[in-house]
């Protein structure tokens, strides 16, 4: 299953408007190519990104998630990324305790000048998630009502 090369991972990216969104714009302006699997949702700041959105993404079928914002000290709002960083530290620890596969969430700082870093980040993340395979474990519990019970066959 995990070695399935036909598998096209679904990846959602939560990025801040000022650094990573602008950085991804620069990737475009520089005509650097990357995989089509990643789709961006724009936020004012990483501080705005709710952990529940990450959970809901897995439930909705995402195989991987990118969360990216301004480098430390570069936040347009001074400290939104610092708050976000703490939230991610806690969130990762809780997910790991519960057995959620935290390798599927890639956190990153991509500045408005790092167009090539964004392309690399996307391509690396797609490759990583491709090797991990679809996140069936999580999607199975999401599909519970349709497919009838978690205790069914794997």
């Amino acid at each position, binding site marked *: 299953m995990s070695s399935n090369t036909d598998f096209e991972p679904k990846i959602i990216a939560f990025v801040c408007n000022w650094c990573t969104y602008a950085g991804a714009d620069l990737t475009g302006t520089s005509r650097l190519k990357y995989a089509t699997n990643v789709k961006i949702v724009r936020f004012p700041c990483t501080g705005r990104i709710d952990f529940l959105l990450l959970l809901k993404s897995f439930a909705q079928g995402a195989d991987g998630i990118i969360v990216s914002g301004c480098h430390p000290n570069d936040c347009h709002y001074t400290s939104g990324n610092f*708050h976000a*960083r703490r*939230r*991610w530290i*806690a969130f990762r620890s*809780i997910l790991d305790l519960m*057995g959620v596969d935290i390798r599927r969430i890639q956190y990153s*700082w991509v500045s408005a000048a790092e167009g090539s870093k964004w392309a690399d980040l996307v391509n690396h993340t797609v490759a990583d998630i491709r090797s991990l395979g679809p996140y069936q474990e999580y999607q199975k519990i999401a599909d*519970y009502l349709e497919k009838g019970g978690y205790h069914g066959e794997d």
Partner: protein
Amino acid sequence: MEKIRERAATLLAEGVVTLVLGYEEGTKRPRPLFCRNSESARKLIFDSRCIHNLAVYLTKKELVGKDRFAVIAPIATLRSIMQLYVENQLSEDKLLVLTVDPSGELRELVTFEDIAGYVEQFELKRGEREQEILSKIDEMSREERWKFWMEEMSHCFKCYACRSACPLCYCSKCVVEVNRPQWINPWPAPLANMEWHINRAMHMVGRCTACGACGDACPVGIPIDLITRKMMEDMAPEFGYIPGQPAKKGNALSTWKLDDREQFIR
């Protein structure tokens, strides 16, 4: 015990407080007692079996009202009171705290500074049960942890007893009741159960005092208190606080340090 009864009766008789929250003998274990007169204060008991966290009642406006009241608080309850105070949910002039120190002496704590000073002496340690389950979890692989919790969660039928028992779950509208959008489905289902418990742990970061009330309250015995407890133990060194010690203004997640860990960030 006699001293507590006497003191409670006096406080009520003299009108210093209008309500004393304490414990009385129950059928299997002690249960909460709300004394409004010195008569009922005679039923008060206090011993090591009195673990029900009475701090949960302190934010119930319909119960505590506008008057001053007293609460009989073992150490776990005191920790919850400290946290509630930090979160602007209690005011000093309405609350009087009675506790019994390890030497059996009755202590009356009036200000939050008093409580903080008292709480500081006590270290928060894992009990046998916590130690046993957590060390088992520590040895599991990620897949095993997922299986373990999925198995446990399959018993959860979303009675929300954990929420009701937790002194820090005082929101007037819980996130599961928020329906635009409906973040977490309120009914029992593997996904909704998982989301609820992860969410609960996230909401407790930097706040949980590991009183264990949620775990005690769970009618199907899911060790949910260990999720928040483990989280608390892991986050304490990360964010520079000591578990069980009085919290400072500003929550672990609403503050930050320049050198917070970020090795996981690419």
